[in-house]
Every structure is written in C-alpha cells, then in structure tokens.
C-alpha cells in the first residue's frame, strides 16, 4: 500500500520524461528532415523513448541509491560520461537497425556501406548526438532543480500560481529529535549536522509515502504539511510518524555505530487555516503564514514536558478516524506559551496487534 503511492509518483514522472523524450526527438527530425519521409521520425521517436527511459532508470533507480554519498564533482563526471557513452550507442544502434530494416541488409553490410560510414563520420551523426546530450542535460537539470526547490515551489514559480496569496487549510506536523540540545553538546555541531543529513534522508520516504509535503527544515526540526483530506485519509499524517519511527529503528545499528545514539522522535500536530503565498524577490519561497504554525510548534514543545512522543490538537483529533491499531487519549487542557486559551491535547499510541489479542 505505502509502496504504491511512491511508486505511482515515480511512474508518473517516468511517463512524463519518456513522452518528453519522444516529443523532443520528433521535434529534431521535423526540423532537420521536414515531413517528406516517415523513417527519420520513427528513428527519433524510438531514440527519444530510449533516452527518456535511460534517464529515468539512472536518475530514479541507480543514482539515488549509489550516488548519495559521492562527491558532487565525481557525480557530475560520472553522469557526463555515462550519458554521452550510452546516448551515443543508443543513437548509433537505432540508426543501424533502422537501416537494416529499411534497406533489408545484414548487420555487417550496413556497417560496411559507404552511405552509413559517411553519415557517421561526415554528416549529422554528431549533431544528433549533441542535440540528444544537450536535451538529456536539460531534463536532468530540471530533475535536479525540482528536487532542490521542491515540486510545488517550482510549479508555483513557473505558473505564478502562488503570486496572489490565498487562505488554505492544512495539517501540520512539526517533527524533531528528542533531547537534541544535549546530543549536540555531546557530539558537536558538525557531527550533528552529518547526523541530520542521514536522519532527514531516512524520514523523507515515509513522509512522501503518506502524501506529506516537506515545507522546511529548521535545525533538527522538519515541518511537514498535508491537505486536510489527504492527511486524514487512512490517518496518513499519524502513520507518517510511526513509519518514520520504524525506519529509524531499522537503521538503529547505523545510527548507533556512527553517531553513538539512536534518535527518538517527537512530533506535534495541528490543523488550521494559513495564508499561502510566494515571498521574496531574490530568494523565492512558497511560505505558509499564520498562527497555526506557532501553535503547532508549541504543541511539539509540550512533548518534552509531558514525556510523550506525539501530541495532536483537539481540532485534528476530532477529524481523524483512527485505524484500529491506534488509540488516542486526552492529556487534558494544556496551557501553551504565548496563548491565552488552554488547548486540549491528545496523545496517540500505536498498539501492536499482539497486544490487542492479549486484551
């Protein structure tokens, strides 16, 4: 179930990339050959699809796993060589096979033919490769930019969607590491930063799998937002927390040996209306603005005082339908810093199936 949502996202992206490849391939042949004959378009169409598939495979399956810890420059070099090499061979073989079919000649015959040699060494072969590599670079660059800025921000900037601020309802989760102050003092800032890189990497997947959007990172804090229906559906927002916790548990050996501790997570949840808009002429960001953010932050702070992992506001608790394995308990009306009115907070616990059977 969880896998599917992420997989669906990736599948959608791959479809877009492959279609773009095909489209850009045909654009090339339309410009260089016009519409007189059919075969160049078939060739470029196939090349486009293959290159799109190649990019998708490398960018979604190979580099995210293997490349994360590599130096950036070596990543760039590896990418460049890999792309130029594989794209040249794709173009070469597609053209070769297309000629074999079209001229009804054998593999070696085509290779040896004057016509083909001339095409490869004198004519458009290098232009075709340059065009393909340039486009692969642009597609890659866009993937990188989208990853850097976040999909929503990028889309917002392109369409100007957030130019006019609007009021939207969102669920917020403020997630951070318990006792981070003490940990920083023990292991030092630099080491703590490395830990955060790993930590954020691990919890990204659970967040995305449950339809959360990462809003920002502040120190050891991650702010995640959901559209109300998406966060409430299957209690996605709550499950994000417990799945992140499990993910950390799975990797606990790594955390323990590398940093000397296994992080414990705490999270505060709230729902409410915020203003969403684009801010900043030179540092464009999509921002959420409103009191809800402050309140969520205060709720999270209460986790430390009340010795709980996860606290949610009554507003959110009322709207959630919890799956059987979760149950919520009221912690009573709690006074929050900077707030005049006390807020009722709930604690949500995960009950494993085994325990349920005993009861």
């Amino acid at each position, binding site marked *: 179930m969880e896998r599917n949502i992420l997989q669906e996202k990736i599948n959608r992206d791959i479809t877009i990339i492959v279609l773009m490849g095909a489209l850009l391939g045909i654009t090339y042949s339309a410009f260089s050959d016009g519409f007189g004959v059919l075969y160049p378009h078939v060739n470029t169409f196939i090349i486009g699809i293959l290159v799109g598939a190649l990019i998708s495979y490398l960018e979604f399956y190979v580099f995210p796993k293997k490349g994360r810890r590599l130096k950036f420059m070596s990543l760039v070099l590896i990418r460049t060589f890999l792309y130029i090499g594989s794209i040249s061979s794709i173009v070469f073989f597609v053209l070769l096979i297309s000629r074999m079919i079209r001229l009804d000649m054998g593999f070696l015959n085509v290779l040896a033919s004057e016509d083909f040699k001339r095409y490869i060494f004198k004519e458009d072969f290098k232009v075709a490769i340059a065009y393909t590599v340039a486009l692969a670079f642009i597609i890659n660059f866009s993937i990188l930019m989208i990853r850097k800025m976040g999909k929503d921000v990028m889309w917002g900037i392109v369409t100007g969607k957030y130019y006019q601020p609007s009021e939207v309802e969102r669920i917020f989760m403020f997630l951070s590491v318990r006792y981070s102050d003490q940990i920083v003092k023990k292991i030092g800032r630099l080491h703590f930063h490395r830990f955060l890189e790993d930590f954020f990497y691990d919890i990204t997947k659970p967040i995305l799998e449950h339809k959360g959007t990462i809003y920002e990172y502040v120190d050891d804090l991650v702010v995640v937002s959901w559209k109300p229906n998406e966060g409430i559906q299957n209690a996605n927002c709550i499950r994000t927390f417990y799945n992140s916790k499990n993910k950390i548990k799975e990797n606990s050996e790594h955390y323990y040996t590398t940093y000397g501790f296994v992080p414990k997570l705490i999270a505060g949840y709230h729902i409410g209306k915020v203003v969403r808009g684009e801010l900043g002429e030179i*540092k464009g*960001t999509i921002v959420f603005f409103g009191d809800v953010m402050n309140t969520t932050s205060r709720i999270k702070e209460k986790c430390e005082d009340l010795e709980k992992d996860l606290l949610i506001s009554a507003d959110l608790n009322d709207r959630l339908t919890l799956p059987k394995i979760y149950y919520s308990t009221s912690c009573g009306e709690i006074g929050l810093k900077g707030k005049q009115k006390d807020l009722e907070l709930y604690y949500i616990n995960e009950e494993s199936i085994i325990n349920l059977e005993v009861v």
Partner: protein
Amino acid sequence: MKFTLENERGRYAIIYVTMAGLVLGLFYPLVANGFARPIAYVHGVSIGLIGGFLVGVIEFYAFKPKNRKFSFLITVITKSTVYSLLFIFLIVLLINFNESWYYNTNMIENFYSQRFQTFLYEGDFKVIVLYSLFSVIIIIFTREMSRKMGQGVFVNFLTGKYHSPCEEERIFMFLDQKSSTPLAEKMGSLGYYKFLKEFYFDVTKCIVANYGEIYRYVGDQVVISWSVKNGLKNANCIRCYYNVKNETEKQREKYLHKYRRVPKFRASLHMGKVIRGEVGNVKSQIVFHGEALYETAFIEKECQKLGLDILVSEPLLKRINLPVIYKKKQVGGIPVLGKDKPIKLFAVEETVLQPL
C-alpha cells in the same frame, strides 16, 4: 550609493549574459560545421556577443524586478515574442553584414544574392534562430533560478560547495516586526501577510545593496546573514538596518494609505561560528546550524523586552569600525550557556552630524 550598487549588479548580469552568449555562439559553428568554414565563427561570435548584450540590457532595464508584477505566463509570452523578433532581425542583419564584408560586396547585393536567399529559405536560418532562442531560454532560466534561490546558492549548488558541511563565521541579523501579534489579530492573517510582503519587497534592495544574504523568512521575521568580510566592511550590517528604516520612512505615505499603518521593526545583530551545510533530498536546502543563531534569538527577545530598535552584540560590535554617525550605548547583556561572562549588548543610534 545604493543605486550605484544596484547598477553594479546590473552590469554583472549584463556581462554574464553577454559572455554566455559568446560561448553559445561559438559552440554552434563548432558542432554544425567543425572547422570547415571560418566565416561561421565570425557569425557565431558577432551574434553571440551583440545578441547576448542586448538580452542582458533588455532583461535588466525593460524587465527589471520593479516591473515584475505580472504573472509568469505573461512574462514568458512577452519575452519570447520580443526575443524572437530581435533574433530574426539580428541574425539576418549580422550574417548579411559579415558576408558582405567577407565577400567584398555591399549589403543589399549580398541580401539578394543566390547564396543568401538559399540560406534564408532553405538553409540553416531557421535552425540558427531556433538555436538562439533556445540559448536565450537557457540563459534566462538559469539566471531566474539563481535569483529565485537566493544569492550565491545556485552557483554553490551546481559546484556542490556545501555537499559536505563546513564551519564558517557569519554575521546574523534578525529583522522582526514590532507588536506583530496584535497586528495580525487586527489585520487578519491575509491582510498582515500582504502588508509584510510589501515590506519585504521594499526592503530587499536595501539588504542586497549592503551585501546581506536572505537566509529565511520565519513568519514576520527575516533572517539575514553576511560573510564576515562583507558585513564588517563599511559597517554594512548596521547600515543595512538604517537603509531599511529610511526606505520605509520614504514609503510611509504608501503604507499609511494602503494599510493604515507603517511597518515598525527591530533588528538584532550578532556574529559567531556556524555549520553551513545542505540537508534534504526531496527539497534540499542550505542551512546554518549553531549556537550563534540561538544567541541571536536571545538578543532578539532582549531587544523586544527593552523596546529598542536595534541591538548589537559585543563580539560583533568590537570588530566593526563604526562610522562617526553611529553612537553605541551599552544596555545590558545576555547570559551564555557554558561561558562565564554574559554577552554584552549595545544599542546603536544614528546621529545627525552638526555642522561645526
């Protein structure tokens, strides 16, 4: 002063675009013809240089940030029309000019020559126009992205400077709205947001002109940072505050008219060592981590408590060569965890120099 600095940035932008144009202009004949036709390089260089320069000028003067009130789509449509026309004209003109020089004819004769007509209608003309537009898109897009991501972030992102975290000494300024909670209640979230957005828009140029880098927006707070060199030079970090103040004073009428209030804000400045690194793989972000940021937050609280406009910490102030128009006055201190002595805090005042 501010304006010359802005113009300086504009000049950099124009130089960047022109240089990029030159490189892309040289790239085309290299790929298309190899070294067979030297005249192609003359075309490439002239179109790249002149086209690049014109794009830079148009980008900076005609589409400069003040005019960027339209939606992105309209901007794109306008720009692509303008640049298509520009490049069609430029390419015809320059290739014609170069060829008439190269073949020793005059331009009109060359234009109607068999060679040029073939080039226009059957040859590479459309490819060259398309290539030029393509190049313009790449140049503008990278510049736009770089602008949107914040100063220096884009370049560092490409070179992977922060791929591994490093320690760095930086100056921080928290710029906070005064009495923000009652204001937000009175104006409503949306109204207050619009008010703040306008304020941020107006003061961004003051920040940039004083070499400040916007780190993040946190509600009604902007966090600005300087490298030690840029922040100390000419007391830029302190002057930034006064520039912001003067700018809002200048726009006072506009704010009063639109929102019936003028932005009032306070600045807290501090300096210290932080870790700078990059986190996140879906939405990655350059972050600062360190005590210095917490200490600045404490200074901000102190500033709020004392009701002051600007509060500067001693570690920062003792390294600034304070211009004579500023006067400092110690107002207190904040205790620091793990250190014996508290950080001393100073209020800074701008004084008008009396003519002697």
